[in-house]
């Protein structure tokens, strides 16, 4: 609830403020910014599904680069768990995207180490490492319900599930006909279970979809993933720092945390997911 409900509710309050101060206005401005050191960026996720898992390796850039991030190609990328080790192969030359074999899957409770050996150093380092564990949360989805909100003209996905009594962290995504809708940090959400630990969620609204994103006949899939506390915090920070801030509700800007050691950016995450789908009827 904390992020899903509250933040949007407070934003609604802010909208009213803007309504009152109708003269407020936003415009694009030109600014000169300094550049900081180039750092290695890792974006990797492994799940309990048996499939190819991807790790994307890029570097940071100046703020107004306005191009795809520079790919880091030709690295030796491996994932170790205990005695076992798999080597990831770059999907396309110069892509910087590395894939596990397609029979790879993560196991709950197992610790994974991502190690990267670069062909050329980035930020004076050639070796980078990240460690994460697959969360052990045991959970499933009973059902999901799509609810149309006439006042705001959007759909809510309401979740019926039971949260286990452990302290858990979740990420929530949505797919339409198998395509991801929540393709940016802003659209996804993450939550801890502080407010509903051990309870039936009883139709808690966990996702909103714009009316133009939903058509009768579409299959909507909700993906509920169990994530680590560190990734939960990383994702909250990513949401906060990539979106707009305002002096009323935002704290001072601060760098996003990372589990990439040796001064890297980004995150190597392990998560287990469950999915539930429904077919949209004409709800309006």
């Amino acid at each position: 609830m904390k992020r899903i409900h509250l933040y949007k509710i407070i934003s609604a309050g802010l909208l009213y403020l803007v309504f009152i101060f109708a003269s407020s206005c936003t415009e694009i401005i030109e600014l000169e910014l300094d550049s900081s050191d180039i750092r290695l960026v890792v974006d990797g996720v492994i799940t309990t599904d048996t499939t190819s898992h991807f790790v994307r390796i890029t570097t940071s850039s100046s703020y107004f680069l306005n191009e795809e991030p520079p790919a880091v190609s030709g690295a030796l990328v491996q994932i170790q768990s205990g005695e076992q080790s798999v080597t990831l192969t770059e999907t396309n030359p110069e892509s910087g995207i590395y894939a596990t074999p397609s029979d790879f899957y993560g196991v709950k409770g197992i610790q994974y180490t991502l190690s990267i050996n670069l062909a050329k150093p980035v930020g004076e380092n050639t070796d980078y490492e990240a460690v994460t564990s697959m969360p052990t949360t045991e959970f499933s989805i009973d059902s999901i319900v799509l609810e149309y909100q006439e006042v705001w003209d959007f759909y809510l996905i309401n979740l019926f599930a039971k949260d286990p009594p452990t302290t858990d962290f979740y990420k929530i995504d949505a797919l339409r006909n198998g395509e991801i809708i929540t393709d940016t940090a802003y659209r996804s959400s993450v939550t801890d279970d502080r407010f509903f630990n051990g309870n039936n969620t009883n139709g808690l609204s966990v996702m909103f979809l714009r009316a133009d994103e939903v058509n009768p006949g579409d299959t909507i899939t909700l993906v509920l993933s169990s994530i680590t506390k560190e990734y939960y915090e990383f994702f909250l920070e990513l949401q906060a720092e990539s979106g707009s801030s305002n002096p009323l509700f935002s704290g001072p800007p601060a760098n996003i945390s990372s589990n990439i050691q040796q001064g890297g950016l980004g995150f190597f995450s392990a998560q287990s997911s469950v999915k539930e789908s429904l077919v949209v009827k004409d709800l309006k």
Partner: protein
Amino acid sequence: MGKTYFLSLLFISLIIGFAIPSKTFGSTSLLAEQFTISGYVEDAENGEMLIGAAIYNVATAKGSSTNVYGYYSIKIAAGKQALIVSYLGYHSKTIELDVKGDIVINIKLEPLQVSLDEVVIKGEAINENILRTQMSVEKLDSKSIRKIPALMGEVDVLKAIQLLPGVQATSEGGSGFSVRGGSPDQNLILLDEALVYNPSHLLGFFSVFNNDAVKSVELYKGDIPAQYGGRLSSVVDVRMNDGNSRRFSGQGGIGTISSRLTLEGPIQKDKSSFMIAGRRTYADLFLLLSKDEQLKNNTLYFYDFNGKANYVINDKNRVFISGYTGKDVFKNDDFGMGWGNRTMTVRWNHLFNQELFSNFSMIYSRFNYSLGVPENQPNAFEWTSSMTDYSFKGDFTWFADDNSLVKFGLIATKHIFKPGTAEGLSGDTPYNKVEVPQNQALETGFYLSNDHKIGSRLTLKYGLRFSTFSNFGATIQYLYDDQYVKVDSVSYPKGKFYNTYFGLEPRLSFSYILNEISSVKGAYTRNIQYVHLAQNSTAGTPLDIWFASGPNVKPQKGDQFSLGYFRNLSKLKLETSLEGFYKLNHNAIDFKDHAELLLNQYLEGELRFGSATSYGLEMMLKQPDGRLNGWISYTWSRTFRDIAGINAGNQYPAGYDRPHDVSVVLNFEVSKRIMVGANWVYSTGSPVTFPTGRFVIGNTIAPVYSDRNSYRLPDYHRLDVSFTYSGKEKPNKKWHGEWNLSVYNAYYRKNPWVINFVADPAQPNVTRAEMTYLFGIVPAITYNFHF
């Protein structure tokens, strides 16, 4: 320990020093027999007590002034004597007396009506600002506040304060302010002695003080007198009108966003009076006119209600009761939110004799908020939080003799903190109850001070405050390791005191009169602050959480040194001042990166500690009255913070570090019926953190930041103007009306409220800087009246 011991010794010797009757040593007493003249100074028209009116003994060239209840007491030699009584905005009065014994005399001063032909003679031209021993103080009355052009025509006490040297607004259009680089939670804001925890309405854009109900406002920026304690940076002492004791009268106004009405009058003439004042906004009434059903269902307003009554029992006893309640409401079918302050003060003024004045107060103060989804909705929930204080206070003023004014007293406050509880309301709610444990504390303060005149030029003020702060149960106290991770918790039973802090706060100052138009003043003060605000944003929301010092949080301590030179250009009646200050804030509190402050049981784990330093120079040129009046002030100041774990442990400029700050406030009476006012403000842009790089996660572009606050927003400047047209004054006409037209941001400066760095929604990979400004030109019209 040695230092504490030494200070305790000093405290004891001070007490002993006072105990020796100075009369036996006094030089004046040898010359002639001395008698005491005492009484109250009041407004001749409405009977309001005048705070800080000067009483000047012509023969000895010594002065005194009325205390916050309008009481004075002065020693005078037998025989024919003259006293001059003066107060800004009033005709001075000379009282001639043939003194044969002690005299009680209540003095009535006539308010000044500035007009074109009249040459204002201000009594004997007493240079009150030169003679006053107090430094770093600014005084505003409701009349001068009213003249300042205001946002949406809403005259605002706190926004007037922001125009004074050394004071800065914390954000555009907001009523929050920083004094000499301090945080907004370091301001002690008092309304009739009761602490106001959140002095704002409408997310900070307006303050809770209805100017019509306010008599006077005093701002102490340094040299904070020993009777005030508990905050590091400043004291804003707001006093409400007592109520007209002569006749029934009223005032009010109909404005663009709110209407006000104040009624006051005698209950029994000259014996008891009352004042009630109300204000309400009506933005939501416009929502009703909307065709949009969605908007129609919204409720959005705030209101204020002030009430006060006083009763003169006899010459020696007076009682007052005053209260304030105000609330903001924002509600629709899906969501509701409300917050408000409530204060209540019951006071008893008692004269033990002509020389010993006392006041006893019982004070209640509360700030609370709640938000949630209404009960008839599925998954309804409610989140509440509150902060409640109960205080008892005793203050004594001993007008010992010509050379010393002794003040002493005590205050004890019980704080009840309820940082937050959230729970589901429906039977099958998915929500657990989440509660940040309630906790309590007892804060006390004892003080003793003496204004000691040595000869006719030098005054020393020395005072000491001893304060204590004790946490007590029932509560749960969490313990943290050195990485701020919670490792343990301890439950304390009800009433169990488990942690106590105490400290000595010396308050020392001097003033030296160089000649009748100039003086030098200096001060050193230490203040201790035991309660702190968990507020991470600059503008401030109503979702305030106050937290107490305790096992994990040391009290904040502040040391301030100030030195000033004051000079009046007497021919022009211009007051000038130059003040410098240096401030150290020990145990300064900040919040870790990405801190979670709301509904967090482990809030104390989000805190980081260090120190803050501020220094600066303030210059002011002021014309207090006349056809053209106002002031020009310039402040140069810096403020830095050093907090372990923030900005990699390196020093960074605080959010309110704006080196150059200029305010120009002018009023000009064009004719008897037309007045124009203007204010112009300029300040260096606020320090901000900008990205110096970016990286990509999925499709999300994320920033890499510079060092904290290493960039600046563009400079801030703004002009506001107002034009007031009064109705014709006619004899026997009681109703006086005036139209006020104000224009905020008259030359349409786009002052950035925030600069955001965001991805362009239309073009992947493109990021851009977006500047948001809140106000274009904001005109407002208000009709004000009084009768």
